[in-house]
């Protein structure tokens, strides 16, 4: 499982997150409204996962470990977060 909810109320993404993780991420975001998504250990993320992150406007804790995500996606993610 590369997406999980932690005991202290954050959601962590780790390693390579595939399309199947999108649903899990969505479920966690719904059950933990306002949770911060920690993707510092994330190497890759499928478009489906990125899409859930964007739609949720969740605040992310980064930068992600993956170089491409860090360079091209992290800024967009920060800009889309509405929750402080």
């Amino acid at each position: 499982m590369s997406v999980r909810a932690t005991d202290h109320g954050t959601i962590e993404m780790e390693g390579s997150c595939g399309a199947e993780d999108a649903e899990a991420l969505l479920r966690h975001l719904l059950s933990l409204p306002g949770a911060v998504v920690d993707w510092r250990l994330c190497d890759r993320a499928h478009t489906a996962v990125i899409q859930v992150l964007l739609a949720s406007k969740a605040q992310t804790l980064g930068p992600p470990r993956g170089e491409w995500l860090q360079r091209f996606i992290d800024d967009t993610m920060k800009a889309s977060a509405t929750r402080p």
Partner: protein
Amino acid sequence: MDDFIEQFLVEARELVVQATEDLLALEQDPGQAERLDSAFRAFHTLKGAAGIVDFDAMGRVLHAGEDLLAAVRAGGETLTPAATGRLLACLDQVVQWLDAMQASGDVPEGADAAADAVLARFEAGREQGFPNTGAANDDWVAQLVAEHVGIAGAAATALRYTPQPDSFFRGEDPLARIEALPGVAAVSLGPRSSWAALEAFDPFTCQIVITALSTAPVAEVRAALHDLGAQVDLEELRPAVLQGPGRGGLSAEAVAVLREQMAMLGQSQAEDVGGRIGSAAAVSINVLRHAGLGEAQARLEAALERSREEADPGMLVAAIRAELDGPLETAPEPSDQSASVPQDLQAQTLRVDVEKIDAVVRLAGELIVLKNALGHTTGLALEGTAPADVAARLKEQHALLERLAGELQRSMLEIRVLPMRHVFQRFPRLVRDMSVKLDKPINLVVEGDATEADKAVVESLFEPLLHVLRNALDHGVEPAALRAERRKPAVATIRLNAAREGETVVIRVEDDGGGVDVARVRQVAEARGVATAEALAAMSDEEAVDLIFAPGFSTAQTVTSLSGRGVGMDAVRSAVERLGGRVRIGSRAGQGTIVRFVLPFTVMITRVMTVEAGGQVFGIPFEAVRETVRFPRERIIAIGAAKAFVLRNRTIPVVDLARTLDLPASQDEPADAILVVASLGDGVGAVEVERLGERMVVMLKPVEGLLAGMPGIGGTTLLGDGRVMLVLDLEELLR
């Protein structure tokens, strides 16, 4: 034709129909979100289909439409009549291309020019301040460049990738595709329309739109994303393509800055429009001056003046765009003919319910079993089995064959039926166009479009119905002022209704207009020699109104572009009669007109009554027969060369069938003549026959070969004993 293209054509036409219906429904009630979604889906799917057959021009046109709809969906814009008009124009163009493809089997030539013309209409609408797609969807390049100002100068290609909603199911990862591209310099992500609330969010549907800048040349990026077709839009950013006369020398930076200004001007209508116009213009003018483009600078200054005066940034955006892209051609309005009258109505393919096909397959199976059984019976007969036994078996098998043949015939006819929708669905669009042209607001109510009839009947109805609808709009519905005076609702209602009644289909076109001006009909009929003054005087109002179906009649005081001239309702009547139907008109002054079509459910099956004359058997279509009477011969009176008799105070002309057909008349003349009284278009007539036969249901075949030119014969059919029976066309016979 390529199977692939064939399939594409079938689907594309269905999608065009769907989109048209949705757009028209939205025009009636803009609040229907599901209609909007459906229209968007139709445009989107069409665009995808265009990509699959490598039809770039069509993809571009649909893309513009899709963008507009996306903006409406996102709530950024409203769908005005002008915007709807542009979307419909887009679909018109697609239909023209589809027709061309149908004819040639390939993507038509010169499509790019046509696409540019349609796109120019979208552009023109935007520049005039009509609802546009908003900066987010429309000027995506400008938006992208503005977001990444520092990088944009170095970028050669801007790309937008809108993956299909089912991409994830197909195992695609759109971002991975972008990652794999050469020279990616910046990536922006956004929703296709807007993100749904998280509770309703579907993580399995791809809803993302990716825009990106790349330092690689367009060709290279295109090659890398080639398989994605119309899902990807590419734009070259280097000024190389922008060089036109007097427009060279703009550096990439200058282009980027100009695009940035456009993006700013295109932003949602915030306050301080004047300030934004001023600052954007100042920056742009400086850029052009710096590039040494004095002429362009002057043009922009002029645009600034106008933009300021009208507090509308549109003019300035247009001017900047013109400097970047070159001037836009204004699109000629599509000609009336191509826009308003779809030509080819013949369904090339028939979509048939699988159950109907299964029924035929099952019957075929039963027929084969029966064939084997008959073979066995033949064997028995040859072996010398008692004739009575063989006869019993044959009788049984004949009964079975009769049942199967009947079922097979019914099943085949079922397959040939089409719903009226096939024809009706075109009218809302056409009525809308006519309504706009005549400036008469119309509410077209279509009812019973699921009513089915034989394919041939349904397909031949388009022109007659269109003509009647045109007349209703043009002559029936009064001008606004007159409607107001008569205290009628400003929006006129035209009702198009179809219903099955027994073996016939009845279609009514009803308007709430002024009705037919009977006095004027009489006047015109006399003036044009359609009827004599005496005949007219003897006519009831009802009969007089029916004169508008007479050849060479047109009551329009002014000939309008719509209702044509001369070839009027008589063409409608003859078309309907060719199908074996009838058409009637009813009218109440000041309240409206109703045109009623009665058509056979199928043209292939006819009920006939057989009669004998001159020793031969003839069929008379049962629907024409009113009654049969035995009538004392001495009371049939000669009127000039003709004969007539009086039945219930009505004088009915009579012809002797044998004599009319030049057959030997029978020797004995019984005291009572046997007369078949029949309804003919606008009256009643009778034929004298020697004997009445039975009623039959026959499969009518059109008259061919030697008999083709023979008047009074409607068709032929085979009798049980192998003889050919002629079925009479009484109308022609009694004329």
